Structure formats: structure tokens, C-alpha cells
């Protein structure tokens, strides 16, 4: 009897390794997969039956003996039922994450069996320019947060004249509340490699780098294993799938600097330098890594490409709303009853995500605030739960979708302390290149401390607003430029916490 136990580091963080070992000792054939994304059910054990995979979770190590005795290993013990039929799974449209939690991430044959190479095969059968057009037509926008049209970026690189071009994957997922990049790299790394290969073929690049943060050792290991396997299969190397097109990928590990998630800092770091921000222009598409034309895309942008090529740009573009096409992988974190990742078309409301999928808070207290889009995203009150997840709708409300991470806080949160933390974080992580960010964040912490201490509140609130305006307008990159977003939104929506 085959059972599936996640090896995803979140599942392991609550005991999945111990559960897997006990099940193996009980005689089960254990396959380690990624996580389905229902993290509140981890460790989630799935048992293969004729009807499909039957789920049990959360399974603590001490539960294993009892469950096995009750018939878990043939799927007859009472459990969650078929995993695919769980409401959380049925309500999704999983394209980028379709194989995560299903396949063995270290097994290329399993990847291919589940259709993982369809997109790459389709792309290699097309003219590179047509691949760029397909990505443009799909409406795919950068999933890292900025939302820049991926096809437009690729076209710029494709049109640039150079002997040497690069594809760099930004896997420096430092935003709190985001973990989808990590889960994809741990759960289905071949899809990322395939997406990078398609990008390289489309723009004429020969070398790829994945820049992974050092806080993700399991993702680094999963990628390295996958790269070795992919080279062995001829999916990477001198002639990708026998096409004559040459491309290889290398993993580089960050060193604990949040700013290296900013694309130009990441390029500096890849070059072996301090991760300071470069002024733009020149844009990386024209002068990127070591001065050569470079595609810089987020993990999920690149991992969405294979499905677009496999099923066609139209199918992808048919999903979503407005100029936000396709699906987004949303991440629910913080004080939430049912946290995890789910993939669905743009347009779903913030409230549906937090309440219907997430089930409200873990503490059982009322939701007071949610932060959307990471530490540089706005804090929103429940009154804005009808906002659709759509880049433009969020921007119009002074917020941002970002990487699709949503962090929930209950009514015990002190929003002035969260605003202070936004400034503290910026002061800690600023690269130091520009003054508004480097000095402004320090002054921001001091000013918020004065407000919290009741010193000359009104005047200091005016000063803080002035500082926020300066940081927004005068910073080189999004670190200093967007830190005012959580600060200002906290003041706007939760002003009582500053009085």
C-alpha cells in the first residue's frame, strides 16, 4: 500500500518526518511529496485507493499506531475522505500548482507522467518569437509583486543583441506571509526549471540562475536534486530534449539580505557583490547580469509558463478579471484558522479568501486587519473585504496584491506597533544606497515611538506623513518607496491606535 507524506518544510515543521518514518516501519510504501497547501491539516497523510487518494490529517506521530490499527493503510479508517473532493481543493483552479503535493519532486518520471513536459515540448516546436507572443497573449504579469507583463519583458530581451543572455529566477522570497515560491520549489522543482528553459529558448539565453534565500535550505536541496536529474534526462544541457538548444541552470544561495529580492540587488549579489540597488535605467532586460540582457522573473511567473504553453494562451487569458489574467497562488498566513496556499483565478474577493477559505482567525477572535502583499503592502480593515483580488482594484484602493500573500491579525493587534515594525524592518534591511530609505526609516521608527509615547502627537503625525511622502517619492526602489504603504494605511484605517 502506497502512502504519500509531504516533505514540504512546513509539514516537516510539525512532524511529517516522524510520521513518515513510523508509517514506513508499519510496512507502508511511503512516497514523499510536496504539500497540497492545506497547512492546517499537516502532517496530511494520503493513502492510495482505487477511488483516489484518501486523506488523514493532521496526523501526529502518536496517532500513527491507532490509525494503522483502524485500517488507515487501506484507506478504510475514518478520515477526511478523498483529498480531491475536499471543499478547499474543489474550489480552486490549480494550474501552476497542479502537481504540487501530488508528485514526488525528486522523480523526473513522475513529473513527466503528470504532464510536466507538455509545455516545454510545445515551446520547442514553436518559433522562439511565437513563444514570446504566447506569453504576452496569456496576459501573464510578474507574480513577484510588481505585476509587469512578462511577455513584454521577454520581448525586450529577445530583441537585444548579445552573444550572452541570462535567465535569472528570483527565489528570494523574503516577504512575510509568502511561501508559495518555497512550496513550488520543494514540491515541483522541475516545473520551475521547465519554465526557465522555455524563457531561455524564447529570448535566446544559454545560462540560468536561481537565486534562493538561505532561509530555505530544503528548497535549495530540492532544486539541486532536480537539476542533476534534469541534466541526466537531457531536459537541461547541450541539447534540451534533443532539440539542439543548449541551456543549463545553476542555484545560488543568498545570505540573509531581504533587499536581494529587489531585482537589481539580486543581480549585484549574483555577481558576488554587496546587494545594493542599481538605479534604473538601464533596465536588466538590456543590461542585467554582468551587463548582459537578462530575464529576471519570480518563481511563480516562470512556473506559470509551462501551463500557458501546454494549454494555450487563450485558456490562461480566459481566467481572471480586467488586466489581471490567469490564476494567482494566494497564501493565507498569520492568525488564520485554515492557513496555506490556494490557486484560483484573479477576481476572488479578499473576504472569500480570509473567511471562506481561511475560516477566520486561529484565535477565534474577530479579524481586525489583514496585510496584503508582504511587509511593503497595505493593512486593510474588514470593511474592505469585498475588494476583488485584481492589481488595478487594489492599486485604486491604495493597496497592492503583490505576491498574493495575506497575513491576518485579530482584534488584539496594536496597529501602531505594526507601523513601527514596518519602519524598523526597513531600517534593518535597507541596502543603504539612497538616503530616504536608509535615514528615513530610522527617523520613522523614532517618530512613531514619540507618537506612541504621547509626545506632541498631532505634530509628530504630520511629521510622519511628511516623511512617508519623502520616502515614497525619493527612494530608489520599492523598499523605501513602499514602506510608507503599511504605515499610512495603518494610520488611515486604524487611526485610533495612534491616539
Amino acid at each position, binding site marked *: 500500500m502506497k502512502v504519500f507524506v509531504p516533505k514540504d*518544510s*512546513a509539514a*516537516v*515543521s*510539525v512532524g511529517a518526518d516522524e510520521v513518515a518514518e513510523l508509517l514506513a516501519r508499519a510496512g507502508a510504501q511511503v512516497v514523499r511529496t510536496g504539500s497540497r497547501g492545506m*497547512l*492546517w491539516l*499537516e502532517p496530511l497523510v494520503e493513502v492510495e485507493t482505487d477511488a483516489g487518494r484518501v486523506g488523514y490529517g493532521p496526523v501526529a506521530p502518536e496517532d500513527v499506531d491507532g490509525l494503522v490499527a483502524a485500517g488507515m493503510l487501506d484507506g478504510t479508517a475514518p478520515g477526511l475522505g478523498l483529498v480531491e473532493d475536499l471543499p478547499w481543493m474543489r474550489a480552486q483552479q490549480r494550474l501552476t500548482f497542479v502537481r504540487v503535493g501530488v508528485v514526488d519532486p525528486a522523480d523526473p518520471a513522475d513529473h513527466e507522467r503528470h504532464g510536466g513536459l507538455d509545455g516545454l515540448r510545445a515551446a520547442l516546436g514553436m518559433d522562439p518569437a511565437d513563444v514570446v507572443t504566447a506569453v504576452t497573449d496569456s496576459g501573464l504579469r510578474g507574480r513577484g509583486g510588481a505585476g509587469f507583463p512578462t511577455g513584454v519583458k521577454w520581448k525586450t530581451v529577445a530583441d537585444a543583441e548579445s552573444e550572452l543572455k541570462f535567465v535569472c529566477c528570483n527565489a528570494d*522570497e*523574503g516577504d*512575510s*506571509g*509568502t*511561501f508559495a515560491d*518555497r512550496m513550488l520549489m520543494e514540491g515541483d522543482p522541475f516545473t520551475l526549471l521547465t519554465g526557465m528553459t522555455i524563457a531561455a529558448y524564447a529570448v535566446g539565453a544559454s545560462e540560468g540562475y536561481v537565486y534562493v534565500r*538561505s*532561509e*530555505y*535550505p*530544503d528548497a535549495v536541496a530540492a532544486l539541486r536534486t532536480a537539476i542533476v536529474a534534469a541534466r541526466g534526462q537531457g531536459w537541461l544541457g547541450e541539447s534540451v530534449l534533443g532539440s539542439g538548444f543548449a541551456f543549463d541552470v*545553476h542555484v*545560488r*544561495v*543568498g*545570505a*540573509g*539580505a*531581504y533587499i536581494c529580492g529587489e531585482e537589481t540587488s539580486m543581480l549585484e*549579489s*549574483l*555577481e*558576488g*557583490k*554587496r*546587494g*545594493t540597488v542599481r538605479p534604473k535605467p538601464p533596465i536588466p532586460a538590456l543590461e542585467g547580469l*554582468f551587463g548582459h540582457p537578462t530575464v529576471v522573473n519570480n518563481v511563480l511567473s516562470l512556473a506559470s509558463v509551462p501551463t500557458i504553453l501546454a494549454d494555450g494562451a487563450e485558456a490562461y487569458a480566459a481566467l481572471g478579471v480586467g488586466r489581471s489574467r490567469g490564476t494567482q497562488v494566494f*497564501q*493565507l*498566513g*498569520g*492568525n*488564520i484558522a485554515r*492557513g*496555506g496556499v490556494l490557486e484560483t483565478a484573479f477576481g476572488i474577493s479578499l473576504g472569500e479568501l480570509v473567511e471562506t477559505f481561511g475560516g477566520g482567525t*486561529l*484565535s477565534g477572535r474577530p479579524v481586525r486587519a489583514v*496585510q496584503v502583499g508582504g*511587509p511593503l503592502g497595505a493593512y486593510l480593515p474588514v470593511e474592505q473585504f469585498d475588494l476583488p483580488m485584481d492589481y488595478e482594484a487594489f492599486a485604486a484602493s491604495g493597496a497592492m496584491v503583490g505576491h498574493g*500573500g495575506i*497575513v*491576518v*491579525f*485579530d482584534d488584539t*493587534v496594536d496597529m501602531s506597533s*505594526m507601523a513601527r*515594525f514596518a519602519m524598523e*524592518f526597513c531600517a*534593518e*534591511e535597507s541596502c543603504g544606497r539612497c538616503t530616504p530609505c536608509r535615514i528615513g526609516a530610522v527617523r520613522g521608527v523614532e517618530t512613531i515611538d514619540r507618537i506612541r509615547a504621547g509626545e506632541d502627537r498631532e505634530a509628530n503625525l504630520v511629521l510622519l506623513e511628511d516623511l512617508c511622502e519623502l520616502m515614497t517619492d525619493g527612494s530608489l526602489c520599492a523598499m523605501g518607496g513602499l514602506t510608507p504603504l503599511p504605515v499610512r494605511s495603518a494610520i488611515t484605517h486604524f487611526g485610533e491606535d495612534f491616539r
Partner: protein
Amino acid sequence: MSIEAPPGPVDEVVSRAVEAHRGSRGALLPILHAVQEELGHVPPSVVPVLAGRLNLSTAEVHGVVTFYRDFRTTPPGRVTVRVCRAEACRAVGGEALMEHAAASLGVTRGGTTPDGAVTLDEVFCLGNCALGPAVQVGDRLHGRVTPARLDALIGQGR
């Protein structure tokens, strides 16, 4: 306690790291990671040696070592405990957990216990935001960590 590794071994470690990444583009970070992996930290004596091998200035290498949080110039404790201080973990008591850790170990953030057993550090996000508070002990991630569980994890690590 001496914070300088003897020069002989340092030289060998640097040579091995440089050799292992020969042919890699811009390999200073992977080399520094390799040095730290072997020595536990990047001793200041490595900087001029590495600068010479890579044809960089001492200032350039020093600048990189000091820019990145991961690279330490002094040895860490035998086990490093990182408590997440970012938003998602704060929403479920991460700050209280950090305060508990500091109080029970008797060190401040970034500090090492006098017996050299445990280094307590802060980290901004471990990617375990749905199962916070999150803590990393060595390379191992832990979720839903209560103060009691943290004490137990630290006890095991000692």
C-alpha cells in the same frame, strides 16, 4: 576564547573553496558560504587571502562579508536558534516567543550563551507563515512553537 582560526587551516579552507568554484561567475558568495560551512564563521584573516586569490580589493571582500547577515566574523554557538520576528509570526505571538527565548537563555538577540552552546538570532520570515510562530534550530524548521516547545528544542540542541 580566541576568535581567530590558525592561519594554516584558514589558507587551506580558502584554497579548497576557491578551487571548488573555479569557473563559476561572480563566485564570492558561494565561496564565503563554503568557508563558513567549514569554519563556522568567516574569520577576518580570510578577507585578505580571498581578496588576493580573486583579484579583488580587501575592501570589496570586507564589504561583502559585512553586508550580509549570514556571514559571521566570530564563531557562533554550537547550535543557532532563529526566531521569526516578521508580521505573520507576530500575529500569533512571535514577539513574545522571542522575549521568552532571550529571557530563558539570558542573552540578547544575536548573542551567544556564555557556555558557547546556543546563539539566539532573529530572522525575518522562514516561509512557514501559516504555522507560526516559526523557529529554525540549525537548518531544521519548526512550526507552532510555544515557549515550552522552544525550551525543549533548545534543550535537545544543547
